[in-house]
């Protein structure tokens, strides 16, 4: 497992659960890789804010769009 494969699995996991094998491989890589830990933090914030945005749950100051 390298970082590129890890990024694919992490993003795939947003659409369907990973197989136990893939999940284990991803976890193992993440535990040892500070780059992927950083990417994972970014993806987590991104995904949460995307959900918020599309649910309309963001207050917007109108007139500056």
């Amino acid at each position, binding site marked *: 497992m*390298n*970082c*590129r*494969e890890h*990024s*694919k699995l992490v*993003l*795939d996991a*947003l*659409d*369907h659960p990973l197989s136990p094998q893939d999940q284990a491989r991803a976890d193992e890589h993440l535990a040892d890789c*500070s*780059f*992927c830990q*950083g*990417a994972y*933090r*970014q*993806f987590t*914030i*991104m995904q949460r*804010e*995307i*959900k*918020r*945005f*599309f*649910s*309309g*749950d*963001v*207050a*917007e*100051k*109108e007139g*500056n*769009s």
Partner: protein
Amino acid sequence: MMSIDSTMVDDDLSREIASHRPFLLRISRLQLGDAALAEDVVQEAILAALECRSAFNGRSTLRTWLVGILKYKVLDALRDKKKHLPCPSTGIHEEIATDDFDVLFDMQGTWREPMSVWIDPEAVAMQTDFARVLQVCLDNLPPNTARVFMLREFLEMETTEICSTTLLSSTNVRALLYRARMGLRACLDIKWIQSRDEKGGIQ
């Protein structure tokens, strides 16, 4: 076409409904990839909202309620207008090739650069700022990529549904979703940090 602003707006709630129009239009355009159709769909959604505005109970925010109505209208439009779905003639094959993210990784497939640390937008005001940056980044996505991404994240379709809606293979849907998210991350990485720097950083 009826003008919402002059004829329909007769109370504060109606006025507020109309004020969400730019946001609804933005989402509708991203999803449908057709400005005129997007406009019609938003018009329908707003008219529907105005008609049954007494049903708005304040349990969700007004915008959330409107987004729910828009979803139904967008789904109707997608059912009606098969021709507006992504098709191979509109550059979708270029969009599916995700090689352009390979520059982020070295020969071993390791990230070339350590990731920057994003300020987590926990405060509501910051969420608004993040949303503004996210809008810019969504607009920067290639059109088919954006539309497949929207099917997943806005209409919340399962990937199998996306395949049957777009007639794309699951491999291609997966590739487009990967591309959308990698593209958004890269864009947000620049623009969110920029936006925080402009705010003075020390907060």
